[in-house]
């Protein structure tokens, strides 16, 4: 047992270091990930430790970075690439959707392109436009990609190890605002498989379903609700694709009420999907329609206004109040 207190940023850095040390084919590259160690320092020290061939800066072009990764993966490497910020992955969209996601299927499994596309994502850090997008829905809607988002340092370490080890491409979403939150991490703990959700707080009255940056919000809301005599269960998806229907539906059936909490714009999103599939599967266990607390259908606001966009504890509790308690 090697317990350590680590921030999520440190846990991610450790995951990269441990994976690169174990497997020489693991490469880390992107913009400013070399000597600088990434604008969030997630790759700090890697180029020094493993050399310029293993962790390196590329010319400034995201389609190029992902396209290069496809070719490297075709020829035996396991690339991990960093998209500097969420919105700066958009130039790589064609490479991600038309090749990363489809190469295995196109070749009937002959060519696989295992790679991890790391995306520092979402808001809460007072960033200017293009630096705070929650872009998970674009990737989750694209078959052939796995999409994961850790909500704590331990999962960040475990999920990144699992993503690098995965035979399939993984879009790895890192909630920026959680980079600096410190926790106990057991680096020797078994790595959680991609595709498994976790009940991170037990509760009996209603279920909060969240992932990534929204999990701490859900947990805090449950804390407050408890003081008001309401017992809220919290499920952390951890993995958006594949989706853990079993855990989520068992949780919702146990309480009969649910609220989905997600930072992204709500329309045609991952949260729409959660509401849809939970309702399809748990309809007759539901005492009220599943509610959503999401970002509004607007471009991400400027720093001074972002607090209006981010799902907060009050908004979550308002949604819980909305779950037609008079019916029970």
């Amino acid at each position: 047992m090697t317990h350590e207190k680590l921030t999520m940023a440190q846990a991610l850095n450790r995951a990269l270091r441990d994976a690169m040390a174990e497997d020489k084919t693991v490469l880390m590259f992107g913009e400013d990930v070399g000597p600088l160690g990434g604008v969030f320092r997630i790759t700090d020290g890697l180029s020094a430790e493993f050399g310029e061939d293993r962790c390196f800066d590329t010319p400034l072009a995201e389609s190029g970075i992902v396209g290069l990764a496809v070719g490297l993966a075709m020829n035996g490497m396991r690339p991990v690439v960093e998209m500097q910020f969420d919105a700066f992955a958009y130039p790589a969209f064609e490479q991600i959707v038309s090749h990363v996601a489809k190469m295995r299927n196109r070749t009937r499994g002959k060519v696989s392109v295992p790679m991890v596309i790391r995306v520092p994502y979402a808001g809460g850090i007072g960033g200017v436009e293009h630096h705070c997008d929650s872009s998970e829905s674009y990737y989750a809607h694209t078959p052939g990609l796995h999409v994961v988002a850790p909500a704590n340092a331990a999962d960040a370490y475990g999920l990144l190890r699992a993503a690098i080890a995965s035979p399939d491409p993984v879009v790895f979403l890192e909630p920026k605002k959680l980079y600096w939150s410190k926790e106990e991490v057991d680096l020797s703990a078994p790595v959680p498989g991609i595709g498994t959700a976790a009940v991170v707080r037990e509760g009996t009255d209603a279920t909060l379903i969240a992932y990534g940056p929204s999990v701490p919000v859900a947990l805090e809301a449950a804390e407050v609700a408890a003081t008001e005599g309401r017992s809220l269960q919290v499920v952390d998806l951890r993995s958006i694709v594949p989706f853990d229907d079993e855990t989520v539906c068992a949780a919702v059936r146990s309480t009969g009420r649910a609220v989905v909490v997600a930072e992204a714009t709500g329309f045609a999103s991952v949260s729409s999907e959660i509401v849809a599939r939970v309702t399809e599967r748990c309809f007759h266990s539901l005492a009220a329609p599943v509610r959503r607390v999401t970002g509004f259908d607007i471009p991400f606001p400027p720093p001074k206004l972002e607090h209006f966009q981010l799902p907060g504890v009050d908004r979550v509790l308002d949604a819980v109040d909305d779950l037609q308690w008079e019916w029970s």
Partner: protein
Amino acid sequence: MTRDPDLLLPSPEPVQLVDPQGRRGGGDTAYEMPGGDALVRAYAALVTSRRLNDQAYALVRQGRLAVYPSSHGQEACQVAAAQVLEERDWLFPTYRDTAAAVARGVDPVEVLVLLKGDWHSGYDPYERKVAPQATPLATQLLHAVGVAHAARLKGEDTVVMAMCGDGATSEGDFHEAMNFAAVFDAPVVFFVQNNEYAISVPLARQTVAPSLAHKGVGYGVPGERVDGNDAAALLSVLGAAVARARAGEGPQLVEAHTYRMQAHTNADDATRYRQDAEVRAWVERDPITRLEAYLRGQGLLDDAAVTAYAQEAERLAAHTREGLNVDVEPDPEDLFRHVYAEPTPQLCEQAAQVQDEISREGGAR
């Protein structure tokens, strides 16, 4: 900033070793005439490629292929691209480069699976080191750079031949691939078949640069121009580029000036955007008659050989016909099998639904 522009700019005119009449020609050039064996091998492959193009075209009319983007008229490029490579090298073809993939040894029946519609790709890319034919323009050029860079990291002296058309050079991915290859010194030969059209759009709408080969200097990559209907010149110029890349001199850009003799595909109507006269003028520059004339003049080819190669080509055409006339029963399970290494629970549910539908077929309703 390392490189001298003068060493990066292409020759003022496309390199030519054999003129349209089949005479040693093209004025003074440092490029050497390939040996007789290489030229005769190229001739045989040209005849096969032409026959394959015509056969595939016929198979569309017979409804065995959905569509076919023919390289009729561009066969010299197709053949040379494959012939200058070693077995350990890689070829990255586009949808139009069926003949190049076949010249590299891939079974045409497998290559044409894409256009037959049975699956997105029909051959194992690792068997002959031929990447899946790329449809999204210029995107494959970056994959080629990645494959080349991986080879260098592994200490292999592999060279990657990355093919694209004139239109594809306008895409951002062309730019990023050229630049990544240059910065990482990746052994890639970017081979642009300039056939003067991108579907209906003429080269003049694609660029106003002195030539496409002039794009190299902006990346620190040497560019060269070659007559795309002169197999001898192509073997020489592409061969030299491959040798430089293999020797560690980094990426190379070669523009072949050729012409798309047929419509973009059978679905296209070329009369809407170009004149017959223009097409006819290119018949005189046909790559096969030109090389045949030269080889006969050199006494390297006689009627017997010509007949023999024609029969070779006929055999391949027959094999292609037979292979494509086989109806493969599509298996819906395939739809769910290769999306991921292991199907997700959701995909298993969905595959089961399809199986259930099939089992109920002919039943109620």
